[in-house]
């Protein structure tokens, strides 16, 4: 029973990590890559570590509980640190004036902001 829960958690974590990796490779600029890195990395790490912590409670003893609490500690740390590292990297890029990728505007379908900006210019 416990094993099935552990397997489910870890498979979900692997799935999210797969999505993150594909996002990191495929997204067009580094701002959107950081979207994938900041979110997917946090959740997949949390799920994988939660699965491992739960499996560790398999043979119940004081030591096992202590180790699980330590893994919980890592989870809390990653939960705080991963978005913060994302901010730091993003801020570095922003400060270094890395341009962000903008969608190529085709004449057929104007993006919604264009409409709004035109309205602002000629009210």
């Amino acid at each position, binding site marked *: 029973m416990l094993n099935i829960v552990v397997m489910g958690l870890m498979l979900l974590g692997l799935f999210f990590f797969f999505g993150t990796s594909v996002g990191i490779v*495929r997204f067009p600029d580094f701002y*959107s890559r950081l979207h994938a890195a900041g979110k997917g990395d*946090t*959740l997949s790490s949390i799920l994988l570590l939660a699965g491992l912590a739960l499996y560790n409670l398999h043979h119940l003893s004081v030591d096992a509980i202590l180790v699980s609490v330590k893994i919980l*500690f890592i989870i809390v740390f990653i939960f705080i640190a991963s978005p913060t590292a994302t901010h730091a990297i993003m801020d570095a890029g922003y400060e270094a004036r890395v341009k962000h990728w903008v969608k190529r505007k085709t004449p057929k379908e104007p993006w919604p902001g264009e409409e709004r900006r035109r309205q602002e210019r000629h009210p």
Partner: protein
Amino acid sequence: MFTLATFIILAGAWLLLSGKFDAFHLALGGISCLLVALISQDLLFHERKKGLAARCGEAFRFLPYSCWLLYQIIVANFHVIQLAISPRLCERELDPHIFTFKTRLKSDFAKFVLANSITLTPGTVTIRIDEDVFHVHAISRKAAGDLETSETMSEMERRVAWVFEGRA
């Protein structure tokens, strides 16, 4: 009083990480925790105006908030995977832009929590905080949501304000 609170937190961390409960290790831990608590007491509790009771209230209200945040992270991940895997959706939906908004939150820690929450919710990442102006990068127009458009406070900011300032 704040020194005592720091000492208790440090001692808890020591007990958790050492895992040895004999007299020698406990004494060593007690001495080092006391020293660190005395030297760097102003580091952990930066704001002195708030009492310990208010902090406990914050910690208590933080729990339902973090449950909501966890739900938001899961939604965000499905959003990212959707964008990453389907080829056409990426071309159509992706419209990255950077916008700024002003927050009403006062304390630094509340701003930090709001910034991390913005990062973890679907489609938006905080770039930087200048005093009380947030620079946010959104991946599409829809994802920016009420952070960009709302005149007063967005939903997330209201939740953070509820946790740290106790008003709805």
